[in-house]
């Protein structure tokens, strides 16, 4: 399988904290890769390096390289804004724009492309909402405020907003940790469907979830990549002792 994203000796520092230590890891195209590991092991930090989110954090330093389709996104001539249009992100807590309607939320990122035609926008909104299975629930109140939706609906709205931009990769940082079990199940089904078109990288602290949704699993511990492999292998016959201890619940 083709490698969509490739981390090569990636290091991330926050001031004196060395949060990610020399990680080399490949993410296969059109599949779901789960990043697991105990809290504070650097999962989010790795993920946020992939769409250059650390550019916003004063004091954060990223070294090594990350290749998207073979091009280093940290090269000097690369525009981080263009990268973020190709690599979308869904956050832990649903974060729709509270001042906008459902419709405007979905179209907010797509609109950044420039002036768009009205029917064009309508179509993007409809297809994005259908993709996240939210269309039937909201089609009669597209002009309602996005904050009127439930937490799970808000998260699906945020995913719709992300895919409306037509990215190639979607990063998800514990997208279900603020949701109830039914909403979680819906998002997991959605991930399953989305991987046909997108490369998905999902951080989760929930090992059952990783086992359910991912094709490949990477286990991190204390900022280092311990082990990476096909998900069934990682969960049945891990090579490293630390991985086994973690997935059997002996720590973390």
């Amino acid at each position, binding site marked *: 399988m083709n490698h969509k994203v490739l981390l090569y000796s990636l290091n991330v520092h926050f001031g004196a904290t060395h949060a990610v230590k020399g990680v080399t890891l490949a993410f296969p195209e059109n599949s779901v890769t789960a990043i697991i590991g105990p809290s504070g092991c650097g999962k989010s930090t790795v993920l946020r390096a992939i769409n250059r989110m650390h550019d916003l954090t004063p004091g954060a330093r990223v070294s090594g390289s990350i290749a998207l389709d073979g091009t280093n996104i940290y090269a000097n001539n690369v525009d981080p*804004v263009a990268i973020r249009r190709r690599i979308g992100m869904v*956050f832990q807590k649903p*974060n729709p724009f509270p001042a906008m309607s459902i419709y405007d939320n979905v179209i907010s990122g797509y609109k950044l492309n420039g002036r768009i035609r009205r029917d064009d926008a309508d179509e993007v909104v409809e297809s994005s909402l259908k993709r996240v299975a939210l269309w039937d629930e909201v089609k009669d109140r597209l002009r309602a405020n996005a904050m009127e939706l439930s937490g799970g609906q808000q998260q699906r709205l945020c995913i719709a907003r992300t895919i409306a931009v037509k990215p190639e990769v979607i990063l998800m940082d514990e997208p279900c940790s603020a949701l109830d079990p039914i909403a979680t199940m819906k998002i997991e089904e959605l991930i399953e469907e989305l991987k046909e078109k997108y490369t998905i990288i999902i951080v989760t602290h929930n090992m059952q979830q990783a086992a359910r949704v991912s094709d490949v699993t990477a286990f991190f511990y204390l900022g280092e990549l311990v082990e990476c492999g096909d998900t069934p292998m990682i969960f049945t016959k891990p090579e490293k002792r630390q991985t086994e201890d973690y997935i059997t619940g002996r720590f973390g």
Partner: protein
Amino acid sequence: MLQETDTRRWQIEKKLSGDFVFKGLTVVFAFTILAILLLMVEEMHRESLPALAKFGWRFVTGREWDAVQSSFGALPFIWGSVISSVLALFLATPLSVGTALFITEIAPQRFGGVVSALVELLAAIPSVIYGLWGVLVMAPWLQQSVEPFLSERLGFIPVFQGTPYGVSMLAAVFILMIMVVPIITAITREVLLTVPQSQKEAAVALGATRWEMIRMTVLPYGRSGILGAVILGLGRAIGETMAVTMVIGNTPQISLSLLSPAYTMPSVIANEFAEASSKLHSSALMEIGLILLVVTLIINILARLLLWGVSRQRGRTP
């Protein structure tokens, strides 16, 4: 054993009563302030009764202010106050919001801190200093360069017609703008700081540039707070006395031209109170004061309500 429990209970009771006294005191203070305010309004109302009885509504529509003829119409002052403040706000708002955005979103953290401290310093300068600078430096500059230019090139617009005096409505607008920018900037900065990081990240992750991020999340999120800051600035501008009195020319007339001298409500009170010889004259000044007080109170309450909404919203939205 028994004794021990007793002392403990005694301590608890003592603490409770200390609390009670403190709470009681604060309530008393709060009500005292409210009572003083109400007394003030009542007192001013009583003092302005003669003018109220004589002129009625004509007081606020009349254009003539003549102490010798005992004819008092306050419209020129109301006009002067409203126009000078509103225009000053009109200029100050983009400047302040821009500065606040620079401090919070664009400048490196430490540099932003320095700018922010400087801005707050500007707010602490006594208004008489602004007035002095205005009358010694700004007004001559306006008279020699800006106003002649405006009346020559744009004189076909009534707003820029007339002789350049220096001391003028335009000077008041500028001085007020300079004085309210620090206040609006400081409050807007506070408002912008309440915009959650998660909102900004949402926009950036969609591929927004910094400016697009500001337009998509920061400004809409801070909308009502910024409005509150602007209205608070309006309250400040309407009440400003010293600096305006020094630069506006103190002429009770209603002129469309910004180049003509004008007069404001606080200025006329400050200028004429000591020399008001007749009962009716001081009563008329009192009535102007009453109008000013009520308007300022309403403006400030409105601004506080908007800003209070912001601090309540904090932590509720994602």
